[in-house]
């Protein structure tokens, strides 16, 4: 660790991992409700459980991004974070806000109160005071990181990261606008949800991935930057108007069907480019970095993002297809692998890289960490296939044959059981990952002849 303030990242990442554990546990519970629909129906209604599952995901990913920014910005801009106090205060506000949203929603406190009660909008259900808190925290964060970058060295990675983070905060402002017209409500709502995950978050993803590739493979910065700019251009070009694929059936004019189909089909390109980038960098790299787990997560992230977000997204993005598949388990399959591949794996990659450095621990539990990768990646992939098959059956029975929704759900039971099983694997993987980062490693894997016979590494130091 070159800069003392990089330590800020540790508490952010730690909090993020705690929420990650809660998120997947909640996923397991609602996964079981699909198998046993009356499970906890009085205590924890499905909609509350699902809210916790999705919101905990978003919050921990954001905390992870913030942590990643605090970790990599000092190194990239070659100076300490502007104000560590502000950074810790920001975390406190976010944690209090998150707890406030969870408690308000779970117990339905202050019903109807405009300031304290839940708003009831899917994914944007936080009470107003929490939303204000989020904006305050975001402003503190933006001030802090922008000041750090402005005073220090500016690189393509810091520029793109800041662009992504600013976009993230500004787009959240649409969460405050809640028009009475439901079609309009949904239209603006996607400004937050879609323009985050298929817009500015991709910039954050690309810059963090670029940082990891720079550190792990030792490729020239110039090469990394060229890729980064191309990826970002492709992401924004396709992603912004690609929002149209959410406007097919919400009451917006019909031309959105063509805008959405054409632009969102191109959204696969930046994800393919990111995967190609990661593998080409490893191929061209001249550094044999000892942190193999971080490299595994980075490559896994790029690959699973391509399949989850790119391929599974394209699967149902053309409006002729989506007419049948909209809102079926096909959507769930895409959502799960896309979020896991693009953003969960990305966070776990930067954490796998940062934790040993932040805690001054080398070697660490790499074998356990890599085992957790295969458990989680295997579990999520299995879940994706299960839900895709469930969605195919559902589409046919419900949308083609015209069977009743609940009758169809009975037919999907076996898929839901299998999905629950894959969820167990993911939760185990999550626990294993946290253990691998939190506790010192004991196992040592003796290198085989191929590794031993390698030339001693060049004088490129491992960072």
């Amino acid at each position: 660790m070159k800069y003392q303030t990089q330590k800020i990242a540790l508490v952010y990442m730690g909090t993020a991992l705690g929420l990650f554990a809660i998120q997947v546990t909640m996923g397991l519970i609602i996964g079981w409700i699909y198998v046993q629909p009356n499970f906890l129906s009085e205590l924890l209604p499905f909609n509350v459980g699902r809210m916790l599952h999705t919101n905990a995901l978003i919050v921990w990913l954001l905390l992870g991004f913030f942590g990643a920014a605090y970790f990599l910005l000092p190194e990239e801009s070659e100076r300490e974070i502007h104000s560590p106090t502000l950074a810790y205060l920001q975390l406190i506000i976010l944690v209090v806000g998150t707890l406030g949203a969870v408690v308000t929603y779970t117990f339905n406190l202050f019903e109807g109160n405009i300031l304290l009660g839940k708003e009831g909008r899917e994914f944007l259900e936080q009470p107003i005071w929490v939303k204000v808190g989020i904006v305050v925290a975001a402003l503190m964060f933006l001030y802090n990181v922008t000041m750090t970058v402005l005073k220090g060295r500016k690189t393509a990675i810091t520029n793109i990261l800041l662009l992504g983070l600013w976009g993230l905060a500004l787009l959240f402002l649409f969460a405050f606008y809640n028009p009475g017209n439901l079609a309009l409500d949904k239209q603006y709502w996607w400004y937050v949800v879609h323009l985050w995950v298929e817009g500015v978050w991709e910039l954050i993803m690309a810059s963090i991935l670029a940082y990891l590739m720079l550190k792990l493979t030792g490729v020239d910065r110039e090469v990394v930057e060229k890729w980064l700019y191309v990826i970002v251009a492709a992401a924004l070009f396709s992603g912004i108007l690609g929002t149209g694929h959410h406007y097919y059936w919400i009451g917006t004019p019909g031309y959105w069907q063509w805008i959405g189909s054409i632009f969102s089909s191109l959204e696969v390109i930046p994800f393919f480019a990111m995967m190609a980038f990661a593998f080409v960098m490893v191929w061209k790299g001249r550094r044999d970095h000892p942190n193999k787990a971080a490299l595994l997560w980075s490559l896994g992230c790029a690959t699973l993002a391509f399949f989850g977000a790119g391929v599974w997204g394209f699967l149902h993005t053309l409006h002729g297809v989506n007419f049948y598949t909209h809102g079926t388990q096909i959507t769930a399959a895409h959502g799960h692998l896309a979020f896991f591949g693009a953003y969960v794996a990305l966070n776990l990659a930067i954490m796998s890289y940062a934790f040993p450095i932040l805690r001054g621990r080398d070697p660490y539990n790499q074998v356990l960490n890599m085992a957790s990768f295969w458990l989680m990646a295997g579990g999520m992939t299995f879940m994706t296939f299960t839900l895709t098959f469930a969605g195919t059956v559902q589409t046919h029975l419900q949308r083609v044959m015209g069977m009743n929704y609940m009758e169809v759900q009975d037919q999907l039971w076996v898929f839901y059981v299998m999905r629950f099983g894959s969820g167990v694997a993911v939760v185990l993987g999550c626990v294993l990952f946290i253990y691998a980062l939190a506790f010192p490693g004991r196992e040592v894997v003796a290198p085989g002849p191929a590794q031993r016979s390698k030339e001693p590494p060049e004088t490129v130091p491992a960072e």
Partner: protein
Amino acid sequence: MSETGTDDFSPLDQLPGDLMMWVLIVSELLVFGAGLAAFLGVRITDPAGFAASQDLLHRTAAGVNTLVLVTSGFLAALAVRSAEAGRIGATRVRLAAASALGLVFLVIKGLEYLEKARHGIGIETDSFFTFYYLLTGFHAAHVIAGIVILGLVGIRCAPRTVEVGAAFWHMVDLVWVLLFPVIYLLR
């Protein structure tokens, strides 16, 4: 392929202008290509309806516009030459002329839209006009963007920047040359 370990040589480096402009051009061509393919695909389902709607279009105006835009592209190409010869004044005059013809294109296009609107034809009228407005409207937006770009490279006048700006302008030109026969003429 070379087998040297330090091959930072890339065919991308040989592209004229800027790599990012080529990324943009390829992306644009993919979008317009997909749009035209979709247009032709939907046309198969209703050839008579498409032909009837097509007859409402003003073919002569679009034909004149084709001449206007191609001439404008020629002027932009001349501007690249004069920029390479270091004649800044001539470059700016040629870029301004190219932009002026871009404006002429927009005026003619605007008159076409106006005439359609007078007859109560809009983007929701039928599938043909949905595509007509999406494709030509999106193209017209690029003409506006192109005029801005030509203006910018006129201000920061250098062989490389003029080349980058002209590349974009040629793309706008090329797209129109593809849109015109498919939308206006194809029977």
